[in-house]
């Protein structure tokens, strides 16, 4: 992409990423003007969450070659963890409105969700993916895919068995007046949800680009034998990647608990949406996944707004089919194998 940038913005605007980003921005602006700023707010909040889940998927697919269909369940684990951490905190806040927990309680719950997701990821690697990898890597993509479907079913049913099928939600994380930007009022929870996803995605990008470990993850995704040759401990990187990917999904689930109460299949929608993102943006890079996340969010919000609430899966699916026909590598897909590159 940087090469195209050098050739001037006009050239860039005629490439696939250029066309889609410009179109998305124009559509967003028109929709906002026509229907009101809440459209934009919804796109930004949903997009931020999707970016987290989709980056996790990209990691799993790019580094481990696993088409992850259990990723929604780590979102669910995040929301469940946050619920069980925040419920007692919020009871405590009711009695002690001056406590520091009023501000930091939600952060604790969301961080807890992230850690819970990371631990769940490590357990899955130890019990499920690791054993399969050591047994045989023949037909890996298919086998690991089937395994993730199994993990998904298992986790959904475990949730139902242990915690029940009811909605476990909270009224809100942060109390107080909505934040107002220009003339738009955004609830504190929504604003914070976006800030959290933005900060995490930015930190994650810096980590992948500049740190020794982040570079090792990229090296494994580009050439696993090469990575082993230079002395990278593959098992360690695999473990780290799975826990990172799951933590990203879980933190999304945790920070959105106020919108999506936890229940067994709460992860399905984010999972499908994140897959739309990955197919749409291709296995190009983190930034591609982030841009794709906001595009899918826009598509979803606009569909709900102008077509009807029942259609928000149909329109993105139709678009995915078109993309698979005309540009199978996705909008930002790179020609060279390897994810997570600039």
């Amino acid at each position, binding site marked *: 992409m940087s090469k195209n940038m050098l050739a001037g913005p006009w050239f860039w605007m005629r490439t696939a990423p250029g066309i889609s980003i410009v179109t998305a921005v124009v559509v967003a602006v028109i929709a906002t003007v026509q229907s009101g700023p809440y459209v934009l707010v919804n796109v930004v909040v949903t997009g931020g969450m999707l970016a987290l889940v989709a980056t996790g998927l990209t990691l799993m697919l790019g580094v481990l070659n696993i088409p992850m269909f259990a990723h929604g369940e780590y979102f669910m684990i995040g929301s469940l963890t946050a619920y069980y951490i925040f419920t007692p905190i919020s009871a405590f806040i009711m009695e002690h409105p001056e406590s520091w927990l009023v501000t930091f309680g939600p952060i604790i719950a969301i961080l807890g969700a992230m850690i819970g997701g990371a631990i769940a990821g490590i357990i899955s690697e130890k019990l499920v993916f690791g054993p399969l990898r050591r047994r045989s890597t023949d037909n890996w993509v298919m086998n690991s895919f089937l395994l993730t479907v199994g993990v998904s079913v298992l986790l959904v049913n475990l949730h139902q068995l242990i915690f029940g099928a009811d909605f476990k939600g909270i009224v809100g994380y942060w109390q107080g007046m909505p934040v107002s930007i220009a003339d738009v009022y955004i609830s504190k929870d929504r604003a914070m949800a976006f800030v959290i996803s933005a900060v995490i995605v930015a930190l994650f990008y810096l980590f992948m680009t500049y740190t020794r470990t982040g570079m090792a993850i990229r090296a494994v995704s580009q*050439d696993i*034998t*090469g990575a082993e*040759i*230079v*002395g*990278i401990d593959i098992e360690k990187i695999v473990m780290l990647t799975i826990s990172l990917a799951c933590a990203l999904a879980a933190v999304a689930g945790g920070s959105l608990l106020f919108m999506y109460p936890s229940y067994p299949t709460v992860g399905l929608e984010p999972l499908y949406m994140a897959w739309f993102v990955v197919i749409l943006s291709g296995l190009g890079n983190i930034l591609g996944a982030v841009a794709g996340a906001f595009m899918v969010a826009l598509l979803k919000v606009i569909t709900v707004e102008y077509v009807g609430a029942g259609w928000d899966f149909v329109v993105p699916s139709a678009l995915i089919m078109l993309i698979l026909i005309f540009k199978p590598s996705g909008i930002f897909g790179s020609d060279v194998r390897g994810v997570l590159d600039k």
Partner: protein
Amino acid sequence: MLLEVTNLNAGYGYLQILRDVSLHINKGEYVGIVGPNGAGKSTFMKTVAGLLSPMSGRVMFNGEDITGLSGSDVSRKGIAFVSEEMNLFVNMTVQENLYMGAYNIKEKKRQNERLEFVFELFPRLAERKKQLAGTMSGGERKMLAIGRGMMSDPSLMLVDEPSFGLAPQLTANVFESLDVLMKNGVTILLVEQNVTKTLAVTHRGYVLENGKIVLEGKSADLAEDSYVRKVFLGV
């Protein structure tokens, strides 16, 4: 003895390729393995480098048993492997690839010293340091692969077919750079199909056929050997 391989048997799954291969390299030596296509030369290199686990046999390095260690552990012991496929990180720049080669070196200062050394050896890489490895030409990639191997300051380099697919001029360049490495005190095990050239530059050589060592000796002697001349040089 820097490397001592005894009765190595190895292969892929149930398919055995190497049969009782024994080989040794002294410190500072430049040793070649020659043999026809499919003889098992790459299989041998991959087994020593830890990318394949042997069925039986022993690999000693620096007096330490390294049989069956993983590739990353072998690399940490000080063996650098430049594979036939090069296994570069195609979406990283030349410089990033080189830094990855120094993954085992923790201090930034030593990494930079190695980088300077490699850039001196291959000025071409210095000119191209911001270029993505995947966009380099075949010869440049070979240089990068060798340079990346050098970055870890190895005591032994395993180099598999560095001249494969290169134009004669580039082949000469690659051999020259290996010569420079050797003079810098690096021990090298070279696998090549270019028999004449290999026997001309190395100290000692082994002939591998059908997974077995059939001949070994001083390279100069091997080059004169009637069997070698008949089979490989067609004279």
